[in-house]
């Protein structure tokens, strides 16, 4: 049996003497090789996805290769995208200095440039290079339609959401290419997309497109249920050049506040080793400050490439809010849940209020200033009281800090943000590693017009066709996207209990009718289940794609 250590706490290691404090040395990323959609990500309010089926004939494929070679300079590199992003950050910062309450306005910060990314499915890549079959990713090789049952998508032919009913990427009709055109102005994006489409049609490809646009006005940046989406993104570790502090992800914590200054970009924005998003770089190791093993690029030409997941998700806004209204009404009659409103219930299930303010920082009600403040809206822990951090340039986070909530009494373990990111808690796969190794860079955008009356009880000229063009970047589809969807969001016991299904985006194909449930606590620690018998986020298409490096495009695919 182990004996107690003596109470003398500190001792220097006899091997190293008193250690020097040192920040992690971050790798220099190949900014001219990696496509900008992967690093730092597009994050533009207007996107057009161009769906492409390539012809099989040899000469048409050769023509496509020629087209790709000509088009190559227009593909946005990480360098170009980061430059654009930095210009935006500067404009946003100066606007905030003038008017602190304003969020980074997309309209004012316009850049006439349009960003373009090119991604290939396994069958599409195989038409161009036999090396495609060597990419050792069962998900990529199988395609999303083949993996749909793992993701919890309904199976029956008549079922909404079943791959047979997808509008894009259904079995037998998987896309070959996905081209993403993104920019600050809808007109410019559309013009560029049309030009690309015209040239593809010219070589005999089958082409279609899907527009996605950030919502306007007071819902700018919010997805269709009304919530500010994309508040929490991982911060990619890495430098854009050999300069010691030319970081791809900006730092905001005062360098004297260690180790927080080494762990976060914005407060709470985990810095994640780049191998989680781009092949050929160090990925997560057991110590977040030390580079882990390389994410292997196999075959070698996949280095500097990434995987892209596309899910066209239709959102039944009316069903969501009617269910919130009805469930809140039912629960409000129960002891411990008096006064529960639909807004509060929805915020409990998301983990944030509509403004983006984290529920566990302001459990009593929304705080729009907090929601819009990037120095505060992602700064919270779950298992411990969240500490105040010192920020650069004398900035402050003046709001109440979140209190320890390990059991999920304040913010339920079934809440969407807890289902996909456990932060400082452990999970069913052990310690903190999941916080770094199961992250996605989300670069999607909503589509469709907003629903005027959010219960959906009036007329809907769009006929329900609105939702999210979900796009995520990761270095492993199986270990990141599929893990989060299948293992955590769809499962009632993981990552932790008491939890339940992710009510927002989880699916529960195993249950009768796909009913989803999760547990919430009342004011006197009573536990009740929220239940949603019908699906309000319905997959209507998608695919798994590979985003090659510029050299791979030129030397392997287009050669």
């Amino acid at each position, binding site marked *: 049996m182990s004996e107690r250590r003596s109470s003398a706490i500190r001792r220097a290691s006899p091997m190293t003497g008193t250690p020097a404090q040192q920040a992690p040395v971050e790798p220099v990323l190949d900014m001219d090789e990696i496509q900008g959609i992967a690093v730092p990500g597009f994050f533009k309010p207007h996107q057009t996805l161009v769906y492409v089926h390539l012809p099989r004939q040899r000469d048409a494929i050769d023509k496509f290769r020629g087209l790709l070679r000509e088009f190559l300079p227009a593909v946005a590199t990480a360098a170009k995208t980061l430059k654009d992003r930095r210009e935006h950050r500067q404009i946003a910062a100066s606007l905030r200095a003038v008017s602190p309450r304003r969020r980074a306005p997309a309209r004012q910060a316009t850049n006439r440039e349009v960003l373009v990314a090119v991604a290939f499915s396994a069958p599409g890549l195989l038409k161009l290079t036999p090396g495609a079959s060597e990419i050792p990713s*069962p998900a990529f090789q199988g395609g999303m339609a083949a993996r749909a049952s793992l993701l919890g998508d309904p199976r029956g032919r008549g079922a909404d959401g079943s791959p047979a009913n997808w509008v894009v990427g259904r079995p037998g009709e998987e896309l070959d290419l996905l081209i993403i055109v993104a920019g600050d102005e809808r007109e410019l994006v559309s013009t560029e997309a049309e030009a690309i489409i015209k040239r593809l049609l010219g070589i005999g490809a089958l082409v279609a497109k899907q527009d996605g646009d950030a919502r306007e006005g007071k819902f700018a940046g919010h997805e269709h249920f009304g919530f500010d989406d994309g508040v929490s993104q991982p911060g990619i570790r890495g430098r854009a050049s050999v300069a010691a502090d030319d970081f791809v992800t900006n730092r905001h914590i005062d360098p004297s506040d260690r180790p927080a200054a080494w762990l976060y970009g914005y407060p709470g924005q985990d810095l994640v080793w780049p191998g989680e998003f781009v092949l050929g770089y160090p990925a997560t190791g057991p110590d977040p400050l030390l580079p882990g093993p390389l994410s292997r690029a196999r075959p070698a030409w996949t280095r500097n490439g990434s995987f892209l997941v596309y899910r066209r998700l239709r959102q039944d806004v009316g069903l969501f809010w009617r269910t919130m209204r009805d469930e809140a009404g039912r629960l409000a009659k129960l002891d411990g849940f008096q006064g529960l409103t639909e807004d509060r219930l929805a915020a409990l299930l998301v983990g944030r209020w509509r403004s983006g303010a984290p529920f566990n920082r302001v459990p009593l009600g929304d705080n729009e200033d907090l929601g819009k403040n990037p120095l505060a809206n992602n700064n919270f822990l779950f298992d411990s009281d969240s500490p105040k951090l010192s920020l650069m340039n004398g900035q402050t986070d003046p709001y109440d800090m979140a209190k320890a909530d390990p059991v999920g009494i304040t913010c339920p373990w079934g809440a969407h943000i807890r289902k996909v990111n456990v932060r*400082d808690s452990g999970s*069913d796969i052990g310690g903190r590693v999941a916080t770094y190794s199961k992250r996605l860079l989300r670069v999607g955008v909503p589509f469709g017009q907003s629903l005027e009356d959010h219960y959906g009880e009036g007329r809907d000229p769009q006929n329900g066709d609105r939702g999210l063009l979900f796009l995520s970047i990761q270095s492993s589809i199986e270990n990141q996207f599929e893990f989060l969807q299948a293992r955590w969001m769809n499962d009632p*016991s993981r990552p932790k209990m008491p939890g339940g299904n992710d009510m927002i985006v989880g699916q529960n194909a*195993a249950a009768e009718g796909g009913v989803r449930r999760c547990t919430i606590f009342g004011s006197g620690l009573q536990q009740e289940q929220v239940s949603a018998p019908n699906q309000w986020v319905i997959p209507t298409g998608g695919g798994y794609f590979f985003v090659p490096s510029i050299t791979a495009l030129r030397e392997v695919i287009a050669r």
Partner: protein
Amino acid sequence: MAVLSRFDPPAFMSDLDRIPGGREQWHEFMSMVFNWAIASEQGVVAPAAGSSAGTVQFFNAAAWDPGEPIIEQAVTWNAFPKELLVRFGRARALVEADRLWPMEAYHSEDYDPAKPGQAVLDASSRSWYRPHDEYCEWHVDREPATGRIRKVTFTSEPPEYWQAIFGGEVPIDTGVSYRFTGNPEIVLDLYRTLVSPEVRVEDLVFSETTQDGKRGDYNFYNKWNSTHGIAHLAAPPNSLSAEAKLGADATVLRGSASGQPVATADALVCCAGYGGPERNSDPTIGAAVNALARLGAMITLVNPVGLYMDHIDLSGWEVPDGIDPHDCVNIIRGKPGMIERMVVEVPAGSSRFVSDITIGGEPVRYGGQIAECITVKLVGGATKLHSVQNGLTPCNSRCCLDPANASRLRDPIGWDAPTPIGFIDALGAEPPSAATLVAVSAHLALPLVSAPRPPIRPLATRSRARRLLA
């Protein structure tokens, strides 16, 4: 509220009802395990400023009435051994997980059966265990001629439970053990029903007295629970008393050298040394318990104390011939949500094999692929939040890693132990200096695992590092 009147057997299983006094003995044993675990923390827990003694925050529900309701929190983890994943990568981990390892391998974190010469050493090993340390073990039954999988059997039954049914002494600590009356015939009957009708009593016991046990004592690693089948957990860290000790250890609040609370899962398991830092189970259990302890709660394990498979996730499972995957899973002992023994096989009457099942399109080639779908749990309970204020106990230990191959944390070493050459301290125990960041890996010289062989028995600790705190 009142004290718990009786500790029930895991999953309320009824085998001990067949032995006069069996249930009462189980209750006494469990109570003793709790009391031992609590006592072991008495010298460890630190008093708050101004107090003379700390309060151990782990309690025995049969001995102490909190006077308030207990909130139950199940802690869940994945059944597939993460240590194998980080050591070998998934492809090879699946192969190793379906094999048995020699007992000597347990005490080396660098054991690799593929190392030249290792196989020769392994051949002389007398007992073998399943390298499954997440409280769920499985046995794969293959058709000899083709290797196709006929059946995979999973268990989470603790070895002490089977010892209780058989009879004999269960060691809890040095000089501390409990003697069960038991009845070997009942164990024989169970083996014959669950494993094979060919089991004989002689197979289940030590045939002669050695350091492993006395002649006639129950042998956890008998062939019907290792090479020829599976009855219950037997891997060294998979014991009920280790579970209780882990729970108790994790209630101790820990502080870093600078006086900050140690709170994250990895940092805690390294600092307190209560388990394997690269397992799914120990860091998660420890973190969940410690988070409640930091809230000043009193913590216990909820009756019936045990380890359970919570459920198996069949998403993505496809079975040919229109067979429903649910028909391929049978709970043999325990019940849904508290599964103790589960078998996966294609329904009788079908000519198909488990090998014909695909998960996400991948054919099942190893039992471990099914283990990846299984969630294991224990159920903790917390009460009297904010009632206890203890001080911070300094770290016992710390973990290192190889910076040239930073794929896993090594087992915790004593706080004052020198950092092994080629390794650096991890997780802020000793922030890496510039010199150590370029250290060269010392892998080249790691020795083959060869002994001395420790006695074989399930241990009362999750920690493999026996050199801890030497």
